[in-house]
């Protein structure tokens, strides 16, 4: 009990210090980040405003940030060690230099918060009320998890990879530990990333090493990784169960989860987002470029269709960039409205598995995996 109190006071002191560096108007500047949608400043939960999404790679200084528990004190790259243990023949303690000696691979991949779009669900569900911007596409670089596990002599009987980050929960908040099925951990695209868009991963994004699990929800990609364990069973902590689970059978909106029928989320749904024009913006009568991005977890995007009349008629947009499974595709379509007025623009993606973005996203008690057809409104004015 005394210990708990001490932790509370330490946290209070840290909070007071954080408040002191704030401006008098309660505004908050997050070091290294341009202005972003601020859902929480301690710990930092930041959403990318849609207008920043107009490039294939999302710049680091506007990339979304999700933290469940306070982030760890900055890790010294000299003293950093990664423990590799569990069902391995050679338990390892690897330095950053050791990790850099392994072959380095580059994987462009989307990271999307499992709860991106939660704020659109009705009835409302608890959690960060993300809009459309808890997502980004970055180039990740580092050694493969499979090669680290090979170095440690991981047993072929290990069915899961357990990953722990250096962050720890305040008071009795559970530690953030995640398990990944070994088949996904051994996938050649699954990395222990040391770099993000060609620079060392910033502290907010997991310096010096983070897991990147392409095609899966962002919560799989543990930050500040300090331990990898080969295990027979999945971790049973809060962030594996009930956290980040999805109902096996859809529930009536507003009803509680059935714990026995919750499943771990694997992969991600098909989804597109309109990045231009901006929602509720005005444009002069004339040619208008409608742009956006689309991705489909482990699948590839096949096509994106766009409607400018609320969904009566659809036209196929032009996809640009390489067709890669884990990265997003940018898309674009030219539009020439003939009359001024208010238009509802919709986008709908289809993937290589035949999945199509739905009109209605499936409500679920934790507000995960929002992927309804995207929608913006624009007022076209007489030129």
């Amino acid at each position, binding site marked *: 009990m005394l210990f708990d109190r001490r932790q509370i006071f330490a946290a209070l002191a840290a*909070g007071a210090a954080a408040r002191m560096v704030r401006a008098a108007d309660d505004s908050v500047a997050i070091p290294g980040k341009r202005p972003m*949608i601020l*859902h*929480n400043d301690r710990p930092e939960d930041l959403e990318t405003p849609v207008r920043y999404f107009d490039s294939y790679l999302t710049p680091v200084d506007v990339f979304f940030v999700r933290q469940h528990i306070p982030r760890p004190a900055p890790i010294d790259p000299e003293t950093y060690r990664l423990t590799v243990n569990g069902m391995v023949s050679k338990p390892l303690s690897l330095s950053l230099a050791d990790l850099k000696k392994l072959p380095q691979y580059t994987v462009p991949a989307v990271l999307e918060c499992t709860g991106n779009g939660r704020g659109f669900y009705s009835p409302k569900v608890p959690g960060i009320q993300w809009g459309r911007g808890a997502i980004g596409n970055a180039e990740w670089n580092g050694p493969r998890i499979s090669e680290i596990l090979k170095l440690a002599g991981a047993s072929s009987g290990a069915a899961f990879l357990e990953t722990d980050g250096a962050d720890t*929960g305040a008071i*009795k908040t*559970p530690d953030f530990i995640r398990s990944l099925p070994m088949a996904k951990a051994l996938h050649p695209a699954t990395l222990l990333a040391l770099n993000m868009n060609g620079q060392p991963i910033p502290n907010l994004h997991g310096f010096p090493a983070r897991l990147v699990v392409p095609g899966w929800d962002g919560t799989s990609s543990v930050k500040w990784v300090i331990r990898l364990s080969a295990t027979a069973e999945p971790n049973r902590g809060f962030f594996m169960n009930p956290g980040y689970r999805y109902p096996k059978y859809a529930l009536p909106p507003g009803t509680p989860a059935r714990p026995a029928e919750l499943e771990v989320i694997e992969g991600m749904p098909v989804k597109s987002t309109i990045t231009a024009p901006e929602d509720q913006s005005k444009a002069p009568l004339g040619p208008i470029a409608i742009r956006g991005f689309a991705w489909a977890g482990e699948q590839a995007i096949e096509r994106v269709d766009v409607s400018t009349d609320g969904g009566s008629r659809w036209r196929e947009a032009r996809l640009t960039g390489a067709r890669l499974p884990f990265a997003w595709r940018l898309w674009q379509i030219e539009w020439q409205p003939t009359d001024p007025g208010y238009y509802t623009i919709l986008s709908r993606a289809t993937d290589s598995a035949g999945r199509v973005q739905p009109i209605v996203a499936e409500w679920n008690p934790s507000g995960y995996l929002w992927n309804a057809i995207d929608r913006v409104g624009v007022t076209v004015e007489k030129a």
Partner: protein
Amino acid sequence: MRKLVPMILAALLAAALWSADQATLDRGKKEEQQSCTPCHSLRLIHSQRLSRATWGKEIDKMAGWGTVVPDRDALLEYLVANYGDDKPVPPPAMSEDGTGKK
């Protein structure tokens, strides 16, 4: 018509009993400061709009994670009164430019 008047009176009485008095709300606000801010900023709470039942579950979840909530009832009334699911969703807050900061 004869039934309508007592029904309205009963509804008004229920509403009066249901809505918390100012003293309770003040206590709830104080409780929020004491029991919630050790672990996270208030933005996390104030950006949400939840039903009474859901706020109650959230308080109990956080109590399970170690925060002490001696005035739970007042905190719940305060949250429902200010951040209930019948309240309008606030416009998104923006952070200031921090690119020049380390």
